[in-house]
C-alpha cells in the first residue's frame, strides 16, 4: 500500500491525471487476471471475496463514479495481513506471499484514481503474474500468465495522452505486436542469462511436499495419489519398450512395520550414514536390458525412479542398499537422467543375518489371526517359500477379495481387518497384508513402492507415468534366487497391472476423469513434454552446452554473460537501425535528376542552390557544347514530366530515367 506523504503530491502534471475509463477497465482486467492465475492455490474464501471486491469496485467506478472512502479502504488494508496470518499462520512463504500480493493488488484497484496509481498497479501486477509461475510452470499456466500481460501492457498504453481513438476490438493488436517484437530479446535472455548454480535463498515449498510417493506407507495413503493425474515422469526407451507387466519403476523400499505404517526403518540421518557405509545389494543381470532416459518432474524429495532393476546409478545419483536411487540434492527442478536396467536378474542371492532379521520383523501384539494363518501355511508347506507365496496369492485370488480405490477404514489390527472382514482395498492393502503374511510364515519379505504401468504415447514415442500410476508391491527372498518381485494386487485384479488403477477400480469417477477425456489428456501430454524439454527443463547443464557450436565445450557464467552481451548488442543494433530507418519517399524522376546532377558535378558543373532545373541544364548545355542536344532533350523531358503532364505518367517517368541512365557526359577534348 502506498503512503502519501506531502512531497509526493508534487508529482509532474501528467502523473496526476485522472484515470480514464478505458485505462481503469484495463487495470481492473489486469488485476482480475492476476487473481485468476493465483486462484488455484489461494483458499476459496479469499479468492472469492477478492473477486467480489474487484467486481464491486469496477461497478462502482464505472456506474457511480468517485473514489472509495478511506473508512472502507483502511479496514480492508489492515484486514488483509490479518486474514493471511489467520489462514497460514505467517506472512512469509510462497502461499501467504501470493495471497498477500493478490490482495494488495485488488486493494490497489480500490484506490486507483490517477495515472500514477495505475502505473504502480501494473508494475506490481507484473510481479504478481510472475509469482504465479512459482506454483507451476506448465505450458498452460505459463500461457495464461502470458495472456495476463496483454491487459497489463494495454493499461500502460491507455495512460498515454492524445492516443488514437479507442476501440476494444483493436486494443490487443498493438500489444501483441509489441510482444512479438520483444520475443527475440526474451529468447536471447532466456538462453543466455547464466543460471545460478545454487539458490541465493531457500527454495520454496520446504515444508510440505504434495506430490509423489512418500517415505512411508500406511494402507490408505497412496489413495490420494491414485486420483492425482499430474505427470510423475516420462520415459523414452532407446530400443523396444518393456511390456506392460514389466513396467515396475522402483522407488523407496520399506522394511519396518509398526502395525499400521510401513517405513524405511531408520531415520534419514541413520540412513545417510548407512547408505554411505554399507554395501549395495549385489545384482547379477540376466538379460532383458533396457536403456532409457527418464525426465522426472520435481518431487521436492531425493529419490529417483528407475525400471526394476537398475544396473548402475546415474551420474548424479547413488543407490541405497536396496537399490533405490537417491539424488545428491533435493529434486526441485525437472531432472533428466539416463539409466540402464535389467528385467531378468538375481538380486542378493545370499542374505546376511542382520538383513534377514530386518526382513522378518513384525510388530508384537498385532494381527493375531493373520499370524495364525501364516504359521499354518509354514507348517503345511514345510517352509517352502514358493508354496507359501502361492498359497497367499491363491487366498487373494479366490478368497472373495475386491479391488477398490475407496476402501472401508481399517481398525487397530489392520491386516486382520483387511484379510478377514473388509476384503476390499488397493495395492497398499495387498502389499501390506501379503508382506505381513510372508514374514509371519518365515519368508523374508519387504514392501517396494514406486510406479507401475503408464501410458504409451505413440506420437511422442515415450511412456508417461502419472502420479495415479503409483503402486506398491512386495519382494520375497528365496534362497539362491534372491529377491523376487511379487505383486499381490495382480492376483486380485490383474487389470490393475494391465490397464491402470483408475480403470481397474471401475467405479466412481469424476466427470473430468471420463475415459475419452483421459485419453485426450494422454495424447495432449506430448505438448507438455515438449514444453518441459524446451523450457522448463532447460537447466544450467544444458545451458553449458549451448556454446558448443562456437567451440566452447563448457560455457561458464562468464562466457554465457559475454554471449548474452554480444547477442543483446546485435539485437539492439538491429532494432535501432529499424527504428532509425525512414521509408525514403523520393520519386523516381527526382532520383534520376539527382543522378544527373551527380554526373554533371563530376565534370565541374555543380547545381547552385538557387538554380532551377531549367537554368541549371541550360548552363550545362552551354558549358558542354558537344552534349548540348542530349542535355536539351533531357531538360525537355524533365520539364514535360514535371510541369506539363497531369498526374502520374509512369511511361514518361521511365523514359526520363532511362535517358538519364544512358547519358554519359564527357569533358570535351580541348
Amino acid at each position: 500500500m502506498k503512503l502519501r506523504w506531502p512531497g509526493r503530491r508534487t508529482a509532474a502534471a501528467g502523473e496526476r491525471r485522472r484515470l480514464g475509463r478505458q485505462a481503469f477497465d484495463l487495470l481492473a482486467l489486469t488485476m482480475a487476471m492476476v487473481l485468476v492465475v493465483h486462484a488455484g492455490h489461494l483458499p476459496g474464501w479469499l479468492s472469492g471475496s477478492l473477486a467480489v471486491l474487484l467486481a464491486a469496485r469496477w461497478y462502482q467506478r464505472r456506474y457511480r463514479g468517485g473514489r472509495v472512502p478511506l473508512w472502507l479502504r483502511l479496514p480492508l488494508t489492515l484486514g488483509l495481513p490479518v486474514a493471511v496470518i489467520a489462514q497460514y499462520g505467517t506472512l512469509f512463504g510462497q502461499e501467504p506471499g501470493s495471497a498477500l500480493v493478490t490482495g494488495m493488488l485488488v486493494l490497489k484497484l480500490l484506490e486507483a484514481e490517477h495515472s500514477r496509481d495505475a502505473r504502480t498497479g501494473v508494475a506490481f501486477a507484473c510481479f504478481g503474474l510472475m509469482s504465479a509461475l512459482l506454483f507451476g510452470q506448465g505450458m498452460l499456466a505459463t500461457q495464461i500468465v502470458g495472456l495476463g500481460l496483454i491487459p497489463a501492457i494495454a493499461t500502460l498504453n491507455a495512460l498515454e495522452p492524445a492516443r488514437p481513438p479507442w476501440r476494444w476490438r483493436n486494443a490487443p493488436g498493438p500489444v501483441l505486436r509489441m510482444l512479438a517484437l520483444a520475443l527475440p530479446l526474451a529468447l536471447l535472455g532466456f538462453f543466455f542469462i547464466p543460471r545460478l548454480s545454487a539458490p541465493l535463498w531457500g527454495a520454496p515449498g520446504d515444508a510440505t511436499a504434495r506430490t509423489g510417493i512418500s517415505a512411508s506407507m500406511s494402507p490408505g495413503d497412496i489413495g490420494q495419489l491414485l486420483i492425482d493425474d499430474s505427470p510423475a515422469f516420462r520415459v523414452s526407451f532407446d530400443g523396444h519398450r518393456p511390456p506392460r507387466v514389466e513396467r515396475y519403476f522402483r522407488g523407496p523400499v520399506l522394511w519396518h512395520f509398526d502395525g499400521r505404517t510401513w517405513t524405511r526403518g531408520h531415520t534419514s540421518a541413520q540412513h545417510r550414514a548407512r547408505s554411505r557405509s554399507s554395501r549395495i545389494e549385489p545384482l547379477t543381470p540376466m538379460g532383458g536390458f533396457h536403456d532409457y532416459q527418464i525426465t522426472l518432474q520435481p518431487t521436492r524429495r531425493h529419490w529417483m525412479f528407475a525400471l526394476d532393476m537398475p544396473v548402475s546409478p546415474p551420474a548424479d545419483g547413488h543407490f541405497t542398499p536396496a537399490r533405490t536411487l537417491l539424488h545428491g540434492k533435493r529434486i526441485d527442478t525437472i531432472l533428466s537422467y539416463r539409466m540402464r536396467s535389467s528385467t531378468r536378474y538375481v538380486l542378493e542371492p545370499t542374505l546376511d543375518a542382520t538383513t534377514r532379521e530386518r526382513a522378518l520383523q513384525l510388530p508384537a501384539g498385532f494381527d493375531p489371526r493373520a499370524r495364525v494363518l501364516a504359521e499354518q501355511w509354514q507348517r503345511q508347506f514345510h517352509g517352502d517359500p514358493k508354496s507359501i507365496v502361492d498359497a497367499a496369492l491363491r487366498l487373494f485370488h479366490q478368497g472373495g477379495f475386491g479391488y477398490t480405490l475407496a476402501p472401508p477404514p481399517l481398525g487397530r489390527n489392520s491386516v486382520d481387518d483387511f484379510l478377514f472382514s473388509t476384503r476390499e482395498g488397493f495395492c497398499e492393502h495387498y502389499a501390506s497384508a501379503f508382506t505381513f503374511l510372508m514374514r509371519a510364515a518365515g519368508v523374508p519379505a519387504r514392501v517396494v513402492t514406486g510406479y507401475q504401468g503408464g501410458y504409451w504415447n505413440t506420437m511422442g514415442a515415450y511412456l508417461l507415468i502419472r502420479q495415479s500410476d503409483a503402486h506398491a508391491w512386495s519382494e520375497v527372498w528365496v534362497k539362491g534366487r534372491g529377491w523376487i518381485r511379487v505383486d499381490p494386487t495382480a492376483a486380485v485384479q490383474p487389470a490393475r497391472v494391465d490397464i491402470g488403477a483408475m480403470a481397474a477400480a471401475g467405479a466412481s469417477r469424476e466427470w473430468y476423469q471420463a475415459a475419452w477425456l483421459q485419453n485426450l489428456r494422454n495424447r495432449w501430454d506430448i505438448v507438455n513434454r515438449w514444453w518441459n524439454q524446451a523450457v522448463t527443463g532447460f537447466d544450467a547443464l544444458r545451458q553449458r552446452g549451448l556454446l558448443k557450436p562456437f567451440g566452447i565445450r563448457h560455457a561458464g557464467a562468464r562466457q554465457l554473460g559475454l554471449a548474452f552481451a554480444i547477442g543483446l548488442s546485435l539485437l539492439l543494433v538491429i532494432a535501432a537501425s529499424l527504428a532509425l530507418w525512414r521509408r525514403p519517399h523520393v520519386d523516381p524522376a527526382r532520383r534520376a535528376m539527382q543522378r544527373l546532377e551527380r554526373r554533371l558535378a563530376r565534370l565541374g558543373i555543380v547545381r547552385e542552390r538557387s538554380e532551377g532545373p531549367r537554368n541549371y541544364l541550360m548552363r550545362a548545355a552551354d558549358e558542354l557544347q558537344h552534349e548540348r542536344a542530349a542535355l536539351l532533350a533531357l531538360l525537355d523531358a524533365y520539364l514535360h514530366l514535371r510541369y506539363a503532364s497531369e498526374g502520374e505518367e509512369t511511361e514518361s517517368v521511365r523514359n526520363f530515367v532511362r535517358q538519364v541512365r544512358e547519358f554519359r557526359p564527357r569533358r570535351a577534348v580541348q
Partner: protein
Amino acid sequence: MKPRQEEPAARTTMASRLHRRLERRLPALTRHKSPESLPVTLSRRRIYILPTRFGLGFAAVLGVMLVGALNYANNAALLLTCLLGGIGIHAMLGAFRNLDGLVAGALHGDSAFAGESLRVRLILDAAGRERPGLRLDGYGGATVTRVETAEHGVDLHVPTLQRGWMPMPRIRIHTTWPLGLFRAWSWIHPDHALLVYPAAEASGPPARDQGMDPQMRLALDGDEPAGFREYRAGDPVHRIAWKLSARHRDLLVSERDRPDTRNARILDWEHAPGLAPEQRIARLARWVNEAHASGQPWTLQLPGQVLEPASGNEHYHRCMTALAELP
C-alpha cells in the same frame, strides 16, 4: 544566447541558474536549443531519451523478478521477465521513433496584449507516420497532440509579460509513448519573434475630444452615398449598385464620403502628461481600444511619428504595433 523569457512559475532556482550558466559556457550542449529557422526535422542528433521515473521503478521490479526467477530456477518466470524486458526496450525505441522524422514546418503567431497568453500555431508534419501522445511544453504552457497529417496545427498559448517584440521561447516536444517507460524529447527554438501589444490600463480619463458635439459628428460622419461612378477593378463587390447598373451600360459603384478626417479623434502622447512612459503607453492603448470600439476614425500622435487619421482593423493594428515598438 539571448536571455530567454523565464517561465512564470518563479523557476529561478539554483538549478535553472546553473543550467543557464552551463548553456553559456558549453554552447555544444545547446547546439540544438539556439534559435534556428523553420522547418526543423527532428532527427537522432537532436532527440534525447531517458527512462521516466516509472521506467526506473519498472526496471527495479523487473530486477526483482529476474533474481526471483533465477533463484527458484524457474524458466517460465525467467521467460516472462525477459519478455517484459524486451517490451521495455521496444518502448524505448518506440518513444524515439515517435519523434524521429517529425517536422516542425511553420509558425503563425497572433498578437496579444502583454500579460495575456499569445496563441501561436505550430504546423507539424507527421512525415508518414502517426505520432500519438506528443506533449509540447517549455514555452510557458503545455499541450498534448496527436499528429497524423502533413499539415497538423497545434495551438500553443505562450504567456507574455511585456510589450514589444518577444522572441519565440523554445518549445520542448516530448513523448512517453507507447508505455510511459521512456521519455524522448527534443527542443525546437524557432527563430521567430512575436509582437506583444501593450496592456491597456483598466480605467482613466477619456481621450481629449475635438470639442465637437457628438450628435453633430454622428450626422456628419454618416456613410451616405455621395454619388456614383463607373466600376474600377478592385472595387468591393458590395459597393456595386446593381439596380442602377442594370439600367446602364457599365457597372456603377456607389461612392461614399471618405471619413471626415478633420474630425478624427486625436490621441496624442502629449495629452497624457506627468505619467511614466509605460503608463502613458497603457493609457494610449486604452484610448486606441476605445476609439476602435466606437468605430470613429482617430489619429495617433507619438513622439517622432504620427499615424494619419483612419479607422478599421488595419489602422488599429498599426497603432498598436507602433505603441508596442516604442522604446
